[in-house]
């Protein structure tokens, strides 16, 4: 697979849109503390204050500034999304390539476990574990990563198996290259596109799951997140505060997921030769 990813991505409107949005969100997340007028969890004013120049999006039911929460929500979403995706991708790469290269009984046992994990409905397991452990952000990231690598591991193993039989790998082996050397020098570089796809969709899944858990109210109440904002605002949906309290975090969350999906779609189109064509939509 020798594809100029940069060029492919630039040709897709979805990817360009996605990357620009994500970069903007990243800037917002990184410089959040400098940009927010108030501490997101500090009571700064009366509850249910209307949007004004001092509180652009008003205040919530305990008088916290909604705009500050919105900006901090980007930090949580992106932090969870990226770290879970990094961890899960590393896990799936290690397990997928090792199963393919070592083979034998190890491969059989590992793939059985992977198959079983794929069948298990992850969301409800996460809810149950979260209900018991009441995880903080770090535990939540580990939990999502631990339950998010199995699908990727299967794809990576399949790809590594076919790479393993290729000429340049047997050539390397005949020169006495070890499994580790072959993995790092020949197999992993060729797996980069697949790993990238897994990474992108991993981000999407993690952001979605984090928002969902916070929406359920099983996330850490000290972590400001968009899901939690929606959860809290929904209790007051009979007031018209939803206009500036509920809609902004929902739109921000959707925009984040849409931009990640756009990048993923463009990559998918670039990596699948059957989908590539002159009119690359």
């Amino acid at each position, binding site marked *: 697979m020798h594809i100029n990813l940069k060029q492919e991505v630039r040709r897709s*409107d*979805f990817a360009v849109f996605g990357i620009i949005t994500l970069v903007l969100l990243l800037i917002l997340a990184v410089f959040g503390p400098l940009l927010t007028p108030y501490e997101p969890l500090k009571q700064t004013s009366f509850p249910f204050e209307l949007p004004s120049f001092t509180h652009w999006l008003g205040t919530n039911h305990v008088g916290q500034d909604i705009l500050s929460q919105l900006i901090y929500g980007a930090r949580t979403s992106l932090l969870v999304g990226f770290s879970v995706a990094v961890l899960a991708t590393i896990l799936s790469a290690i397990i997928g390539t090792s199963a393919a290269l070592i083979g034998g009984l190890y491969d059989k046992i590992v793939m*059985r*476990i992977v*198959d*079983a*994990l794929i*069948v*298990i*409905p992850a*969301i*409800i*397991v996460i*809810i*149950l*574990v979260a*209900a*018991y*452990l009441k995880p903080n952000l770090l535990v939540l990231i580990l939990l999502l990563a631990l339950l998010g690598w199995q699908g990727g591991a299967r794809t990576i193993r399949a790809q590594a198996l076919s790479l393993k039989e290729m000429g340049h790998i047997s050539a390397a082996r005949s020169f006495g290259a070890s499994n580790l050397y072959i993995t790092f020098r020949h197999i992993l570089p060729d797996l980069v596109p697949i790993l990238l796809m897994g990474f992108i969709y991993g981000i999407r899944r993690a952001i*979605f799951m984090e*928002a*969902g858990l916070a*929406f*359920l*109210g*099983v996330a850490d109440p000290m972590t400001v997140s968009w899901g939690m904002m*929606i959860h809290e605002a*929904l209790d007051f*949906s*009979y007031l018209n505060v*939803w206009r500036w309290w*509920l809609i902004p975090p*929902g739109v921000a*969350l*959707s*925009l984040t*997921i*849409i*931009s990640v*999906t*756009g990048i993923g*779609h463009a990559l*998918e189109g670039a990596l*699948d030769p*059957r*989908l590539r*064509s002159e*009119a690359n*939509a």
Partner: protein
Amino acid sequence: MRNVVTYIIAFLLILALNFLLPRMLPGDPLMAIYGNEALIAMTPELEAHLVERFALDQPLWQQFGAYLAALVQGDAGYSYYYNSPVLSVVLGRLPWTLLLVGTALILSTLLGIVLGIESGWRRGTRRDKSLLAGLMAVSGFPDFFLGILLLIGFGMTLGIFPLSGAITPYSGLSGAPLVLDVLHHLFLPATALTLGYLGASYLLTRNTMITVLKNPYMLVARAKGLHDRKIRYRHAGRNALLPVITRTGIQLGRMVTGAIFVEIVFAYPGLGYLTYEALLARDYPILQGVLLIAAVSVLIANFLVDLSYPRLDPRIRYAH
């Protein structure tokens, strides 16, 4: 046979998780197994009974034995919050989830296939591009946010759909009015879920369609001078169906858990809403029961898909 072994392993993993989670936590395992509600009702006799029932004074492997023995007899625990056996509470909610998710799954698959075929056929045109962009945007909306938007728009502002529940309580309806009432309540949650699922089945159909269109038999069909629509649906569309149906089958397994968030938004009394109620009440037996039932239905659905697959794709039948 390979799959059956996978299912057994998956089922054992779920059982182990259900068994170990409450027992591994620091603190009183009884509290973790039974949640807050039980402690209020707790008497020394009841406690002694429960300790014996779960073999909590025995080593871990004997506890696991007691747990399995109870399960085999159909005893998945007792909910003190609902004051009835876990299995009957969970199974009582199951039909509503099946109705909601089943409707959404069928609608989104059918709609996704038609839109995907049309879009793939016209790939690169303006209509295809706007459809693609529109559906990608919709599928980026988390289903609970879609639900909230529908609820605020059609339920609260316009007031043409009920805000919560699956039937009008105490209405005493029966027959056709009851069916209409159920459909009326079903409309918004099912729409939210359909929109949430639509993007995936549409994108998959479109991608497959693009691949299928490159086959030589498409040229033959065209050379025969067949009508455009006939080529599109009979020759191309039909061959693009298989992956979509496989995916729907896999989705079928997610049926029970797929609607958690939408059910909560609309207070729709299925398993998802039950999960939420149990979370609020810290009713752990119910949570475990939901996980158990969800896992079993995933396994059953996968098994059915495996069985039906050779019928859908003759190549598999010949390969074995």
